[in-house]
């Protein structure tokens, strides 16, 4: 029998919140899979955000090797162009050629039909993780023109005899409230809809099923609703509208609650697979594309992902259940998403071994993930004086290397060491000259012919 394969990405999930990794959020359903499989403790994402990281999973290459990554001036605007240019290997194409029925589900707009991430799938279904459609967002914006809040706007509309408009907005808001209640927004972001869809479908085997669940992706709290997330992040980062501790805590709570919710949906999915007798013989990979920073105590504090290579942004969970719950021997070292392609290819050939672990792994970024100058010109975020200088300071090209418990992050514009840690704790550069030399050597080979000062 050929192996069915599940690749489940819990978008934006950092591992340290999970009880499996010592955190305080229990995920009983994921734990169940982990009991039948292997928990990899040291998985590192090669990139700090969605498209680049997913491209690494599918291509088996680091960002600078596949080229689908942000760049200094354009941020994310370059991604679709780079996706078109990529013509290398792709695990989805490989599976397709092996006769697999590839099925994709996503709630992340980067991974939606037409993005080229949907190539070689027999079906790729996208559900919006937002409870408001664009049209409704427009309505809300319009409504706000009439007054600062709902009461003021309503007063204005009625006193000016605009009854038709009032009724229109009344219905929109009523619908929104109903939706909020229904989905317990923001904590459900369509994972329930995806699982419903799967449970009510049948699939030709063998199949490969890719799912991207957006539950733990921001927004994670009520105050973030209806506000452009870029506005929240960058205005905080540049010191305009600081996100206070109380709000950050609300976000963290929401984040954990979302994890519980998506865990529950994974439980429903697993029950279904067990009932259908698909579970035992399947390869199930549960991981994330990147984590999330909650303004941890760093030199530059940040809420969100992208833009930095902090542990909270690139240390991710990785759980693999092999067919027949086979327990492989784990190697010591670090796991990288880049190796998932190799793992899948090997399992298909009935070769079960630890293809994920390497002695040395890397993560890299090439600038901010948004075009900040444009966001400023469009008034989405407040204007910063001397923005070029600020971009260079905050979002230089960076590369991180992990080896033997040590992590080194280098700013490739200045060659400066930005972070040096041993098992997550700050280490003294002057006490470990040989380690620094070795890690720099690893980075300098890894960077190849790229202009990057070490």
């Amino acid at each position, binding site marked *: 029998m050929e192996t069915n394969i599940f690749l489940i990405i819990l978008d934006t999930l950092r591992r340290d919140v999970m009880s499996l990794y010592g955190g305080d959020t229990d995920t009983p359903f994921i734990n169940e899979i982990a009991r039948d499989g292997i928990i990899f403790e040291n998985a590192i994402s090669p990139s700090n955000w969605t498209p680049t990281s997913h491209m690494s999973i599918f291509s088996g290459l680091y960002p*600078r*090797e596949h080229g689908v990554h942000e760049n200094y001036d354009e941020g994310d605007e370059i991604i679709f162009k780079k996706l078109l240019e990529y013509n290398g*290997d792709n695990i989805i194409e490989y599976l397709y050629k092996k006769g697999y029925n590839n099925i994709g589900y996503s709630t992340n707009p980067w991974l939606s039909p037409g993005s080229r991430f949907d190539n070689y799938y027999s079906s790729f279904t996208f559900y919006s993780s937002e409870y408001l459609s664009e049209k409704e967002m427009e309505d809300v914006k319009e409504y706000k023109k009439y007054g600062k809040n709902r009461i003021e706007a309503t007063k204005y509309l009625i006193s000016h005899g605009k009854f038709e408009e009032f009724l229109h907005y009344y219905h929109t808001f009523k619908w929104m409230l109903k939706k909020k209640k229904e989905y317990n927004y923001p904590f459900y972001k369509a994972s329930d809809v995806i699982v419903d869809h799967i449970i009510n479908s049948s699939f030709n085997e063998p199949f490969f099923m890719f799912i991207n669940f957006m539950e733990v992706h921001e927004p994670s709290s009520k105050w973030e609703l209806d506000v452009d997330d870029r506005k929240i992040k960058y205005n905080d980062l540049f010191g305009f509208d600081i996100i206070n501790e109380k709000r950050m805590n609300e976000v963290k709570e929401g984040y954990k609650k979302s994890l519980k919710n998506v865990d529950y949906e994974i439980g429903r999915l697993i029950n279904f697979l067990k009932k259908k007798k698909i579970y035992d013989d399947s390869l199930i990979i549960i991981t994330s594309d990147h984590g999330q920073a909650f303004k941890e105590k760093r030199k530059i504090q940040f809420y969100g992902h992208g833009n930095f290579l902090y542990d909270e942004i690139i240390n991710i969970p990785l759980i693999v259940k092999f067919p027949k719950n086979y327990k492989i021997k784990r190697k010591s070292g670090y796991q990288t998403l880049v190796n998932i392609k190799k793992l899948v290819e090997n399992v298909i050939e009935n070769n079960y071994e630890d293809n994920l672990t390497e002695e040395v792994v890397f993560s890299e970024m090439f600038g901010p993930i948004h075009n900040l100058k444009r966001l400023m010109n469009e008034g989405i975020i407040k204007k910063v004086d001397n923005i070029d200088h600020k971009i260079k300071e905050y979002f230089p090209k960076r590369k991180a290397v992990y080896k033997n418990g040590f992590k080194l992050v280098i700013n490739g514009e200045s060659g400066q060491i930005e972070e040096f840690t041993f098992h997550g704790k700050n280490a003294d550069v002057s006490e470990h000259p040989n380690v620094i030399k070795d890690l720099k050597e690893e980075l300098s080979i*890894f960077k*190849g*012919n790229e202009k990057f000062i070490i």
Partner: protein
Amino acid sequence: MQNNRRIEGGLSLNAKEEIAKIVIKDALERFKRPFVVWSAGKDSMVVLHLVKTYVEKNNLEMPPALFIDHGQHYDETLEMINKISKDWNFKVIFARNEDALSKVKDGKIYVKDLNEENQMEVRKIGFLGDYFEYSLETDVGNHILKTVAMNDAIKRYRIDALFTGIRWDENPARSWEVFISPREDPPHVRVHPILPFTERNVWEYTFKYNLPIHPLYKQGYRSIDGKYDSKKTDDRPAWEQDLENTYERAGRSQDKEGMMEKLRRFGYM
């Protein structure tokens, strides 16, 4: 030796240098993590110099060199590697099959002593014996000590382009090679800038640019890979020998064309 004229196409050394430059330029533009295989032998020395000249002129970074350390190098070779890499300021990565080298007992390597990966490699090339000689002149020895070490380095350092100094006139097994040649396992390309060079051209280039020369060539060796297997072909310096009418690898104990073909198939060349 034979067919030299057909192979080099009557081009002058200058013209062949221009070809080499085009090959180097193309490879450096297309690939992200190039390495130069370097043994301190005459051919790889020429490739290294050609690459160095090109990157310096174009203000690019010098790719690191990959030295395949099979444990049987002459001391002179290791001295040259250290000195030249320091003088020319580039990195050298030593590719070694540590497991196999640590298992040598009385000049033999027992298959059962090897780790799982190496045992698999031994089986892959069809070797069925219990042990093999610690030598580069058998299929299995060459595969384990050179090919496996090199392939591991290609994987470990994610090398996408490997410059080597092979030439069309060396051996019939190499006469069909192309300038940029894709390999599958592990995936990468081989870049061959000096394919059209003859052995004579290599010496001409060496003297033209005053490149360091491995001392053994002066003593009459024409090929200097392993200290237990290479022999002098003549007492005259390599460049004074009859390069056009004798085999360059005659100095190696077992220079069978079949072995070259096999090495190629399993990824060495």
